[in-house]
């Protein structure tokens, strides 16, 4: 009997432009349903957490379950201000890119809670190895907005001297490792940094960051092997925002399991969390940080969120996904959800929220004015061409001295 011809399975998202978004197959547990295990739990006992979703905020805006309750109203308001600042910052910088003041920008719209909340789980001296979509870590750590903008404008005050693509910030002081721009490489470096801390007998931990699409990189696997083998004190963060440019998350993993479930083969505890729930995100990150700091090793966390904006200033998502999908996303908007919670607690109001938004806008505008006085990519003061040749090595070797002279600097 002749064999039936084979055919290649190529996964497709449920919704393309022109289709009606449908998240009915997306299983969302009730807030409070997933319980909080002890930090020294045997990973095998919490395997189901890789298939569920830790949630704290319910539809009414109440914090429920045993992952709730650790944060004061002041801390929650601070978190809300960080997210509001990041959202306004994104708007202003995206506009600045459209005005030609910089070449490139990538916004966080819809996933502001992830980086802002995880920042609160880390301590001074810990080190993030971020991707290009975790600027909330810097804002929450108090890195000056003006300095961030100087980097985006590649102006004369850019701490990175105009060498690096916009948004690839670096600040050791603020626990933010230089962003590569290549994908996946830094997930592994975070594990190495954490191993270094353990070798040195230090108490610091590292946080690796990767997107859903980049978990397909070999370095993801390498990071998991090393983290597992050496029980590195590291928090391994997967930001699942559903889309890797135009490729839906199914391209990186087929339709099988979850990204978090990849931790199981390595014996690494794996948790999925509602990434649009500031309280849940912070609670799970704090659990992982405590686990790492007390010597129990790595944790793999999948933050389930949605990239409501374009991948970057170079991208037009209307070509590959429905424009209605963001509004249909069932986990809502992280800012609106935290705002509602604070109002339920009687610690916030619509008026205060509008005032906070205006303050965030004012802060960002002031920083932008100051940054633009230092120049933009097109106008005003710029880094010296001489800077191009510095710091390839600590000491400039003779061939680079010759090339710098040849270039006329």
């Amino acid at each position, binding site marked *: 009997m002749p064999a039936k011809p084979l055919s290649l399975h190529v996964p497709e998202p449920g919704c393309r432009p022109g289709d009606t978004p449908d998240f009915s197959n997306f299983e969302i547990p009730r807030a409070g349903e997933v319980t909080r295990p002890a930090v020294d739990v045997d990973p095998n006992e919490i395997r189901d957490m890789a298939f569920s979703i830790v949630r704290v905020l319910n539809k009414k805006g109440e914090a429920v379950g045993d992952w709730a309750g650790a944060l004061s109203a002041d801390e929650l308001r601070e978190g809300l201000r960080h997210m509001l600042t990041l959202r306004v910052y994104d708007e202003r910088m995206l506009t600045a890119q459209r005005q030609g003041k910089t070449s490139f920008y990538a916004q966080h719209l819809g996933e502001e809670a992830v980086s802002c909340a995880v920042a609160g789980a880390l301590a001074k001296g810990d080190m993030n190895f971020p991707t290009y979509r975790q600027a909330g870590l810097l804002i929450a750590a108090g890195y000056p907005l003006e300095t961030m903008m100087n980097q985006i404008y590649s102006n004369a005050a850019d701490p990175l001297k105009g060498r690096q693509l916009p948004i690839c910030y670096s600040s050791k002081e603020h626990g933010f490792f230089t962003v590569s721009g290549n994908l996946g490489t830094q997930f592994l470096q975070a594990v190495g940094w954490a191993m270094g801390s353990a070798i040195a007998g230090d108490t610091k931990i590292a946080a690796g960051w990767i997107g859903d699409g980049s978990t397909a990189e070999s*370095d993801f696997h*390498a990071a998991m092997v090393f983290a597992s083998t050496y029980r590195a004190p590291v928090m391994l963060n997967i930001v699942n925002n559903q889309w890797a440019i135009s490729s839906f998350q199914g391209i990186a993993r087929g339709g099988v399991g979850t990204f978090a479930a990849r931790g199981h083969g390595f014996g690494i505890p794996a948790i999925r969390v509602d990434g649009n729930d500031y309280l849940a995100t912070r609670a799970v990150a704090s659990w992982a940080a405590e686990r790492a700091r007390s010597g129990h090793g790595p944790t793999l966390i999948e933050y389930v969120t949605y990239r409501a904006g374009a991948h970057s200033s170079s991208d037009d998502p209307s070509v590959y996904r429905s424009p209605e999908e963001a509004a249909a996303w069932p986990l809502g908007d992280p800012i609106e959800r935290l705002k509602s919670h604070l109002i339920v607690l009687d610690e916030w109001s619509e008026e205060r929220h509008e005032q906070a938004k205006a303050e965030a806008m004012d802060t960002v505008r002031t920083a932008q004015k100051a940054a633009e006085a230092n120049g933009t990519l097109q106008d005003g003061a710029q880094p010296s061409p001489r800077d191009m040749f510095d710091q390839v090595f600590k000491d400039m070797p003779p061939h680079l001295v010759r090339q710098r002279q040849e270039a006329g600097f």
Partner: protein
Amino acid sequence: MARMTMIEAIRAAHDEAMAADDRVVVFGEDVGFFGGVFRCTQGLQAKYGKQRCFDAPINESGIVGAAIGMAAYGLKPVIEIQFADYVYPGFDQIASEAARIRYRSAGDFTVPLVIRMPAGGGIFGGQTHSQSPEAIFTHVCGLKTVIPSNPRDAKGLLLSAIEDPDPVIFLEPKRLYNGPFDGHHDRPVVSWKNVDEGDVPEDDPVPLGKAKVRREGADVTVLAYGTMVHVAQAACEETGVDCEIIDLRTLVPVDLPTIAESVKKTGRCVVVHEATRTGGYGAELVSLVQEACFYSLETPIERVTGWDTPYPHAQEWDYFPGPERLGAALKRVMEA
């Protein structure tokens, strides 16, 4: 003064560096308990403990990437890639990350890291245990690339590489691990223990970026490194051409003044390496010599290299650029 093999010299450099600085950590495939497949790290785990010398999973990207993280943390990792032929999975971490982190962060983060790997053929290793990939690294800005030709330099250069504040690629000619080798594969094996070149003085640093004139001569400058330094010596003796043999030792940054001074004196130049020819490091050397010494050259510069094929198994000695091929080139430049 002790006489040692290159393996013992490399081991001694690790030992000295680890004794002097707690930040020096050593890892790679099989390097811990076993001490490496070539035994270059033998005894280090027993002496310095498992935290500072340990086995790594078989994942070169993982080894390099983890080492970058450790270096950024503040340690000084010295890692072993079991064979240079295995380095390619780690290449992204080397070229896109280690080499650029100081530059892209404007010095906020740095990567003091030594990546050791045995390179070159002559041991019937076939295409997966014989390659000389130096040009792949010399083409990457932000890396230094080093190849010793004897135990004394292996120790001195490795200590300098560990001291260096930037990533260093350290290629070890595996055919020179146990003794000098001049390409006469049909002759008895010589141990470093039986030749003066096996002497390794104590406290003898060898700086990066400095070449060494192995033989002074008047007729032709031979630019060589690693195993080819010994091939050059044999070819020189066997042809009677009065060669000035320069052992480059460091390929980036290269010691151009020493090269130029010699070529201006001899007026002739032959470049030799075991790696494939097209786009090889020899092409860079030829360009540098042409730029610096054009008006001193009496004949065209010759290149003697491995062929542009994968490194074959049975045909190893047809591939390897031995003293006969180099000798023919020496005669050609003298007769031209």
